[in-house]
């Protein structure tokens, strides 16, 4: 099985000679990095006004920390996920990963009760969530992949329905909670870029760096996995181990981002596809860097636009859902009619 048409980059890498192509890639990566840095600086220093500068700087720094962590984690995770799912229209967000995270948190409160949850330090709680979620997510998605790994649309559809199922289940279990527990749960799952817990930010940043470092040795093998399962096995890659390890990294990264700012279904889809579009290469080391940079530029730029230019008349999530939804319909139509 060769790589299906979905994986083909719009600019076919095979046609361009190797040296200029490498240069193009390098130049574009540099441009992306520059854009990300400019946006970060603009976010931090533009429009301070005459408010208490020290306070503003501290708050913005925290928000920026969250945006950068989320952008990088989402971009990195999505490229990895697309490769093992062997499709560009499959992303963790679309597959219901973030809904799963909310569900795990709900179950957590339902089982242990708010008393225990409140007493536990926010970091410990996050770590427990993370372990449960990673185990559950990896097992679940392994099962789905095995069940219908060759059937792209079934996979996406099941993912979407699972997402809505988890949402309903979270709603259902949250209705079963006592009012106290429910309030605790709301505190846990209510997250946004505007209110970032400092302790959680440091912890998630550390975990993100750790997860990305754990993912880096996988990248070269993922270059081979992208050729399709059979080719990868023929070429001597331990396919199942790579897929399981990748899923684990992806789950951790998604959990980090969801814990920090709540579900952002389409960010990964947009930035990963932008990266694949702009960078004419199959090499994952380049693609994940590009996607992470796009992710940072996208979240920071988007939040800058929403908060400073549009003056909070909408939220980043709403905008992303609107743009991402339309883009997804377009991708699907292109995919399904080809």
């Amino acid at each position, binding site marked *: 099985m060769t790589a299906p048409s979905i994986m083909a980059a719009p600019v076919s890498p095979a046609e361009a000679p190797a040296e200029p192509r490498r240069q193009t890639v390098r130049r574009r990566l540099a441009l992306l990095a520059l854009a990300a840095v400019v946006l970060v600086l603009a976010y931090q220093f533009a429009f301070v006004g005459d408010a208490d500068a020290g306070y503003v700087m501290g708050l913005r720094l925290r928000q920026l920390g969250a945006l950068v962590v989320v952008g990088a984690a989402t971009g990195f995770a999505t490229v990895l996920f697309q490769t093992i799912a062997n499709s560009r229209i499959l992303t963790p967000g679309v597959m219901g990963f973030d809904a799963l995270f909310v569900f795990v948190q709900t179950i957590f409160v339902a089982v242990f009760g708010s008393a225990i949850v409140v007493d536990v330090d926010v970091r410990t709680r996050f770590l427990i969530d993370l372990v449960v979620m990673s185990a559950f997510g990896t097992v679940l998605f392994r099962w789905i992949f095995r*069940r*219908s790994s060759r*059937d792209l*649309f*079934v996979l*996406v*559809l*099941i993912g*979407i*329905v*699972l997402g*809505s*199922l988890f*949402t*309903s*289940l979270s*709603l*259902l279990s949250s*209705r*079963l909670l006592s009012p106290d527990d429910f309030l605790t749960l709301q505190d846990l799952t209510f997250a946004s870029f505007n209110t970032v817990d400092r302790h959680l930010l440091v912890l998630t940043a550390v975990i993100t760096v750790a997860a990305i470092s754990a993912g880096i040795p996988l990248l070269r093998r993922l270059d081979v996995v992208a050729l399709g399962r059979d080719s990868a096995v023929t070429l001597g890659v331990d396919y199942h181990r790579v897929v399981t390890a990748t899923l684990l990294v992806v789950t951790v990264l998604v959990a980090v981002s969801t814990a920090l700012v709540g579900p952002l279904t389409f960010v990964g889809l947009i930035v990963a596809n932008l990266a694949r579009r702009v960078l004419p290469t199959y090499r994952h080391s380049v693609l994940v860097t590009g996607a992470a940079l796009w992710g940072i530029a996208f979240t920071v730029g988007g939040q800058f636009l929403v908060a400073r230019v549009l003056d909070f*008349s*909408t*939220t980043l999530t*709403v*905008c992303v*859902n*609107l743009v991402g*939804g*339309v883009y*997804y*319909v377009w991708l*699907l*139509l292109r995919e*399904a*009619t080809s």
Partner: protein
Amino acid sequence: MSVGGGRQPIADRVVDPIGARSRGPATDRDDDRCDPEAARRRTARRRLVVAAVVLAVGSFLSLFVGVISVAPWSILDQDSDAYRALVISRIPRLLALLLAGSSLAVAGVIMQQVMRNRFVSPSTAGTTESAVLGIVLATLWFGGSSLTVRMLFAIATALVGTFVFVHLLRRVRLADIIVVPLLGLMFGAVITAVTVFIAYRYDLLQLIEIWTTGSFSRVLQGRYEPLYLVLLGAVVAYVFADRFTVVGMGERFATNLGVNHARILNLGIGIAAVNTAIVVVVVGAVPFLGLIVPNVVALWAGDNLRRTLPITALAGAAFVLACDVVGRVIRHPYEIPVGTVAGVIGGVVFIVLILRARTDRIG
């Protein structure tokens, strides 16, 4: 939709009509003169009666589930709390449940028939989401508007949204039927994003939840009666049932039989959209109902619409009734909205249906 007939009966708890048929209906044979059509019609009728009886018993029992304990004989004492609970809340609620459930199921089965895709339904074609958008717009432009205004807006947007989706589908030649619900869900997500965008700007976010999660706890005497309008759609659907079946056999076949394909298609979609909008305005959305109920019914009753329409309506009503009773009992004396319960059950059944559709696609 063609896979329904020859399949093993599943979840056939009521009687065992198909099983009886496949074993050879020894008792029916004499008067049927081996006429399979007459036998089939009779099993269909028998099935319908059994389903109706089951639903009637369930409905009756549901009247006694709730915070105020009500005994059957309290209907005689017009001054009691129990009597008032029955007349003001329980009976209207039951009627609303039956109307909403049956009309959503009928909307689903018609859409599936005329679109020739068993994964099309009000919740997978942007219909529900469009209706909610209409309600938000009505609230925005006319303030605390009357139910009539909201309903008109919801009907209009539901029609527009559904037809946009249907014509989008007819434009593109899709290779795979499973793409259709996928596109529909995404289409709905885009419309929801527009709705949320508007609602966020004008502080209407909390209102959205009322219509996206169907609940019958607001149904009281005097507040649900517009729901009776769905009966109109149901009657039209029944009259045109045979033509919908023919349209479901394909455009060329339908035209050959003298049926105006485009007109009947639009009529079917129109009825489905209007009925869905009415239900959404009065009680809110019940996710996946229009999708899973017709599919489960088709598994053991085939897809002759004239025959399956009544039974689909009964099954839809029974499904909503069951979800509502579960929601009322599970956290007594509090309530869980029917939309949430249906979302859980419907999601699971939908996934099973998708996996089934794939495993026996060869057949």
